[in-house]
């Protein structure tokens, strides 16, 4: 799976959780939680959506260190390739 495909899947998951998100102005290099004002329930739903799309289960400890979509895509790339 290419990085672009992972990015598209992640953005799809994001749209499912925060349908009001305007991806045209969304920055993948900035803090995801701050940009979308998502809470802990949204975060969990996002992780579930990522899991359903990419079959990767992100541990809480890892998720706590991931702040941007770019970081998440890089992390997922490593997990999918492993």
């Amino acid at each position, binding site marked *: 799976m290419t990085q672009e495909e992972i990015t598209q899947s992640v953005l799809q998951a994001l749209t499912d959780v*925060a*349908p*009001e998100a305007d991806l045209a102005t969304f920055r993948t290099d900035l803090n995801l*939680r701050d940009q979308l004002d998502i*809470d*802990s*329930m949204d975060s*969990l*739903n996002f*992780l*579930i959506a990522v*899991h359903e799309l990419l079959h990767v*289960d*992100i*541990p*809480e*400890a890892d998720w706590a260190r991931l702040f941007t979509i770019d970081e998440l895509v890089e992390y997922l790339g490593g997990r999918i390739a492993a």
Partner: protein
Amino acid sequence: MADFVMPSLGADMSAGTLAAWLKQPGETVKRGEIIAVVHTDKADVEVEVFTSGIVERMLVEPGTEVPVGTPLAVIREEDAAPAPAAPAPAPAPAPAPPAPAAAPAPSAPAAPVVPVEHHLLISPSARQLAHELGIEAEGVQGTGPGGRIQRRDVEAAAAAREAPPQAAPPAPPAVVTPPAAAAPPAAAPPAAPLSPAAAPPAAPLSPAAERNAAMRRAIAASMSRSKREIPHFYLGQTIDMSRSLAWLGQENLRRPVTERVLHGVLMVKAVALALREVPELNAVWAGDELVRRDDINVGVAISLRGGGLVAPAIHHTDELTLEELMHAFRDLVSRARAGSLRSSEMSEPTITVTSIGERGVESIFGVIFPPQVAIVGFGTLVERPWISEGQILPCPVVNASLSADHRVTDGHRASQFLAAVDRLLQEPEEL
């Protein structure tokens, strides 16, 4: 025969608008089944029926606002004989007056029953939006679970309808009239005379803006009443969360992502069990007396996208396992944001839990939702120096606050309650 009446879905609700019937005359209903959707200032609420039987006739048509307590339908209870033929349908009742109506309207005229939409998978808020925008819901492609039509689907349908068939040429600059505020001073028109007659008519609010305005009005009424009527007092306690977080971390490691439990759920459960230990707080002040409640129904404050909040109850919170509580909480958040709460969830919890600590807020000084007894606020989890067994160690802590009604309880009982919350969060395996 039993009347199905407009329910009270909040302490300050005086009237509600029947948004849709989900049953038709002749259909059987069971106690607890959803029969209608009611639109309030704060949310669309799916209303359950509390009588099992057969729907005899509808008395109010969708789109009609009626006072709380107004009979909406007649239900023939199980084992009851059929009623004589229903009277001929009368015109729809006039809109309800804004004044609160303590007594039900005794003779609400019967109204023609309109076709119901219960075969259509659509969220109540999407249905309402479709109605407001004049969109035929049947023609909207649903993208939610099982093809359920959601608000975004209706908005997409509306956008598609309004899109011009082909790109219109841009208007020539000379015809464009900029807003007065944006115009340069030299181009500004002469000041209009300050007379009401000359004032431009207010632009109509968009449906979303109108919903937000209604939400703010409802919150304003509720919070003003709270501060006017409830003598609040406030207590706070810093709680060591190291044991809870370590335990939950291990638990969640063993669970698939779909079964993880949020630490907020531990807090809600701890509040419910503390309420069981200090039952004096499981009460409300009604009129001029204290009324105790047997069931422990903890409300959870849920912020809504686009602003506002609701605080529906999780029933029998103390009896649920953490897994059940997590499931109920997740379901409640999802439905609150989709606009499909149920009337029983809006019935009065005695206490509400709120947490807005995810943006770094450490302390919350909450305002009680009338007529509840208290609101418990949890701030953000922070790491602080903590003295344990003579050593200073870094420790994750949370500030728990309690705003309580001094008519119902006092500082002594309230401090017992907060101490119980603290102790319970030190014993997460017991939650």
